[in-house]
């Protein structure tokens, strides 16, 4: 038996599983957390209002397309600059200051390069790297084939690889 989205428990479980990832998705496109969080709320209101019409298995891709449409309707489509937080990578030895400095430099250049990616590549890249999603999931959410997602990912990585050459 399929779960019923109109049931509060089911609805809440969808929220706790997907709300953050939908927020991140809009953040990648807009560069504004406040806007992204607003749109998550709007998208979930829409889901509730249409809960009888949306199949449980389709709820996820429904959320992404509603959020995306809401975003497209924002008239100001400005250049976005994303800010990330960095988790400390685990290291076994204490690295030399020289090494640390170089790593820091590399990180900065990589972030700038991520920001400079075309939106379609940036979104796919970050959905995989930050949200740890598989290509299949991204494909479902963006209504693309897995191959198309892989192509975008490959293009993104080829572009980012240039960071190595600008030393």
């Amino acid at each position, binding site marked *: 038996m399929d779960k019923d989205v109109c049931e509060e428990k089911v609805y*809440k479980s969808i*929220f*706790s599983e997907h*709300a*953050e990832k939908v*927020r*991140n998705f809009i*953040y990648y496109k807009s560069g504004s*957390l406040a806007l992204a*969080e607003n749109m*998550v*709320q709007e998208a*979930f*209101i829409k889901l*509730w209002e249409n809960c009888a019409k949306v199949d449980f298995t389709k709820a996820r891709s429904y959320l992404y397309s509603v959020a995306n*449409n809401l975003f*497209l*309707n924002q008239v100001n489509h400005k250049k976005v600059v994303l800010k*990330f*937080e*960095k*988790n*400390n*990578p685990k290291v076994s030895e204490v690295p030399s200051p020289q090494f640390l400095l170089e790593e820091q430099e*590399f*990180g900065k250049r*990589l*972030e700038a390069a*991520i920001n400079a990616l075309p939106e*379609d590549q940036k979104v796919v*890249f*970050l959905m*995989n*790297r*930050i949200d740890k999603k*598989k*290509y299949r999931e991204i494909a479902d959410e963006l*209504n*693309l*084939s897995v*191959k*198309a*997602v*892989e*192509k*975008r*990912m*490959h293009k993104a*990585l*080829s572009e*980012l*690889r240039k*960071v*190595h050459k600008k030393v």
Partner: protein
Amino acid sequence: MDNKDTLYARMLSGDLSQKEVDELKASGEWEEIEKIIDFSDNLSLPAYDKKSAFDNLNASLNKKTKASVRKLNPVWVVGIAASLILLIGFFLFLPGGQYSFSAEYATVMEHYLQDNSKVIINDGSRINYKSKNWARNRTVQLTGEAFFEVEKGSPFVVETDKGKVEVLGTSFNVRSWGEALAVECYTGKVQVTAGDQKVVLTPGLMVKMKDGENPETATFEHTIPHWQNEVSRFADEPLQSVLEELERQYNVQVDVVKTDKRFTGSFTHTSLETALDQICKPFGLDFEITPEKIRIY
């Protein structure tokens, strides 16, 4: 199988053959990509407060339920109607998995098809396509003008009311306004059919056909369509269709006595006054801009 265009993506997902792994390692690419993967693995975003977000959501859902008992306030109705119209401006879902996308006057819209092929739709133009069986049947109906970047795959067909354009994987511009169909090929190979005329284009070649007859081919050197550089260019076209293009670009109305003058040149998309200068000066014409319309005399 040629899967070079997904190589790094498959490296990340651990989906490579041994041969591909060896090649990447030998060329040094492996190490470079690995470092990007490791670095980006540690990126994250500020935490999301799920609990308070859900409470907020709940609160606004409750408010909505209560509000729906009251009469809809007229300002709201206008708001809803306006937002509906806005949505329709972007796309329409039609029965049978059909999509319709259009760019409103004075806007350009970028759209990705399922296979990652890109379409940039010039203003006032529209595309329609069916998403069902897209991989096998890549057919787009175009009204107006659009630029295509097509991924490799089955034949990609653009149908206009003046003829059709068929390609494999390439980028090209189709312009189907006024009396002529004009196609510019940027990469790959393009076949244009109108009536019983067939022309094959290679990069840097363009063709103009009037009423499916007398194809005129010419060479060009620009690497993206002029309209994407915010100019429109014309070679010996009726002044009438130049002014129609101006109307679309600036979303204005132009009043002019019927004329059979022909125009060669360009106008900018960034300043209406300069654009009018560019069009009118060569003919010794004057213009007047009023809030309602533009008069040329």
